[in-house]
C-alpha cells in the first residue's frame, strides 16, 4: 500500500498554524507557499500530501478515509462523534464551550430552559448530565442574537476572548468543556500506515 500520508488541514488561521508546526517537524511542502490554483500539495520526499478543507469537514474526510490524518477542533469531535483515533492534543486554537447569557438567565424555573446553539448534541448531553429539561433551538450563526431578541434564555457556544459576549451585554455563565485542536487519524489508515502516522504524531508532540 502507498505509504504517503494524506493530511486534511482546516482552512484559515488554525490550518496555517498547524502547517507551520508540521513544517518545523520536517513535513513541509514548498508548493503551499505558491499555491496557484492547486488544491492538493504533495511532497514525495517526506511522504505527505496536504489539502485544506472547511474546518467542520476535516473529521468527515478523515473518518471516510479521504484523508489519513487531519486536525479538527474538539468541539467538532464532541458534536459529531466521528469514529476516528484522537492521537494528540495540539494545544492550539484553545477556547471553551460555555453556556452564556444575561446574568441569572440560566436560573429560570417552572418551564424548560430555552437554549440556542449550533452544537445541539453537546448541549443535549450537558443538560442531560444535569437532568435538566431544555428546549433546544438550532441556529447556524449569530447565536448571540438569540437571547438579546428573546428567542432563547441562554446560548451554548464557543468563547475565545469573550469580547463579543461583553459587547452584547452577555457573559459566561457555565463552562461545559475546554476546546483545542486535535490530531486525528482514520482507524484503518492508522493500521496500514502505522509507522509514518505515529512518526508524524511523535514529531508534532515535540512542538506541543
Amino acid at each position: 500500500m502507498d505509504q504517503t500520508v494524506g493530511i486534511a488541514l482546516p482552512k484559515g488561521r488554525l490550518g496555517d498554524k498547524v502547517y507551520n508546526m508540521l513544517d518545523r517537524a520536517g513535513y513541509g511542502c514548498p508548493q503551499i507557499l505558491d499555491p496557484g490554483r492547486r488544491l492538493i500539495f504533495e511532497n514525495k520526499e517526506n511522504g505527505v500530501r496536504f489539502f485544506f478543507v472547511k474546518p467542520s469537514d476535516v473529521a468527515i474526510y478523515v473518518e471516510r478515509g479521504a484523508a489519513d490524518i487531519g486536525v479538527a477542533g474538539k468541539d467538532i469531535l464532541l458534536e459529531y462523534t466521528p469514529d476516528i483515533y484522537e492521537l494528540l492534543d495540539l494545544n492550539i486554537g484553545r477556547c471553551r464551550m460555555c453556556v452564556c447569557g444575561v446574568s441569572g438567565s440560566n436560573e429560570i424555573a417552572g418551564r424548560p430552559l430555552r437554549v440556542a446553539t449550533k452544537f445541539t448534541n453537546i448541549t443535549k448531553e450537558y443538560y442531560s448530565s444535569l437532568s435538566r429539561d431544555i428546549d433546544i433551538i438550532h441556529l447556524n450563526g449569530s447565536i448571540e442574537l438569540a437571547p438579546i431578541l428573546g428567542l432563547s434564555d441562554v446560548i451554548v457556544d464557543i468563547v475565545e476572548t469573550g469580547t463579543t459576549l461583553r459587547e452584547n451585554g452577555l457573559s459566561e455563565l457555565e463552562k461545559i468543556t475546554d476546546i483545542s485542536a486535535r490530531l486525528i487519524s482514520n482507524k484503518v489508515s492508522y493500521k496500514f500506515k502505522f509507522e509514518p502516522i505515529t512518526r508524524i504524531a511523535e514529531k508534532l508532540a515535540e512542538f506541543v
Partner: protein
Amino acid sequence: MEYNVKLQGLGEKAMFDLRSLYESYGYRQFRMSKFEEYDFYAQNRNFITGSSILTFTDTNGHLMALKPDITLSIIKGSKIGANFDKVYYNESVYRAADSLSGFREIRQTGLECIGNLDLYTICEVVSLAAMSLAAISGDYILDISHMGLLSGFFSDSEIPYDLHEQLLVLAEAKNIHDARLLCNKAGIPQRDIDTLTSLILLRGTLNEALTKLRTLPLGEQAMSAVRELEDVSQVLQSAGLGKNIYIDLSLQSNPGYYNGLVFKGYIAGVPSAILSGGRYDGLLRKMGKDAGAMGFAVYLNLLENLYSDSSQYDVDVLILQSGHDDAAELLRLVKNIIDGGETCRVDVKIPEGLKYRRLLQTDGGK
C-alpha cells in the same frame, strides 16, 4: 469455476468464496425470513447495533420488524446439545443510516459457533475470520483484543466505577491525553494512569504485544484475559495462522454484547472495519441457554467501492454491426474475444454513456 471479478463485483465474488470457505469447515447454511416480530428485538435491544428498527404491521395486525440483526435469530433457533451448532449465513440486515435519516440495507455474510467453546473452537473462529479477509484481499489486518482486559484492569485498580464507561470511550479513540486529564482530576494514582495509557496505546504483532503486556503491572483479573490471549496466540502461531493478526487493546466492541475475545478486520482501501466479531456468552444466558457462542460478520456492502475506478470500462470491446453481417461469423468473432478473456458487446450504435476499451465496426460482409 473461476469467477470474473469485474462482472460479478467484488462483493459477490467474496460471497461465493466465503461460502465455500465456511462449508469446507463444516458450517451449514442458516436461512431466515426477512422479518421477525418486533417484540423479539425490543426485548433484546442491548444486543442490537444501533437502536432504530424498521417496523410495519402485517396482515394479521402483528407489529413486525425488518431484521436489524442475524445473530439473534440464529441463537433463538439454536438447539444446545453435546455438540456444536456451527452455521454460516448470507443475508441482508436493515439499520438506520449513520448520518442522515432513513435506513440502509447491509449485506452480511458470517458465521456463528454455539456450544461449550474450547480453545480449538475459539482459534478456529479467529482463523476463519483471518481467512475470510485473506479471501477478499491479500492486504488485510485482523486486530484482536479481549473485553476482560481493560475491565479487569479497572477492577484491579483504584479507578472508580463511574469513570469506567468514559475511559472505555476514550480508549476506543486512543485518546490518552483526555484519559490522563480525567484520571488526574479524579486523583487516580500515577501508577494506574501510566498502566492505563500503556494499555490504550498497546498495539503490535501477537509476540510484540504479549511481550509488552507481560511487563505491565496487571492484577489477577486482567492477567486472566492476558492468559487467554496468550493461549490463542500460541495456537494460531503454532498452526502457522498468526500472519497479519495484531493485538490492539483499544478495540472495545459493544460491552453489552461481547464478553471475551473480540476482533475486527480491515482491508487496505476500505476506510472502516469490514469484519467484526467476538465471543458473546451473555446473549445465550439472556435467552436461557447454557452455552457459549462466538462468531463474526463480514460487511459485503463495504466492498462495493473497493477498487472502484471512474475510468473503468463497462465493456472491453464494443462491436458495431452494420445489419448486413454474416451472423455466424459475428458470433464466432464475439466468442473468440470472450474466450480471450475480454468482455464484448454487439450493438448497432454506441449506447449513451457506455465506456468501452476498443471499438470494432463490421463492414457488412464487404
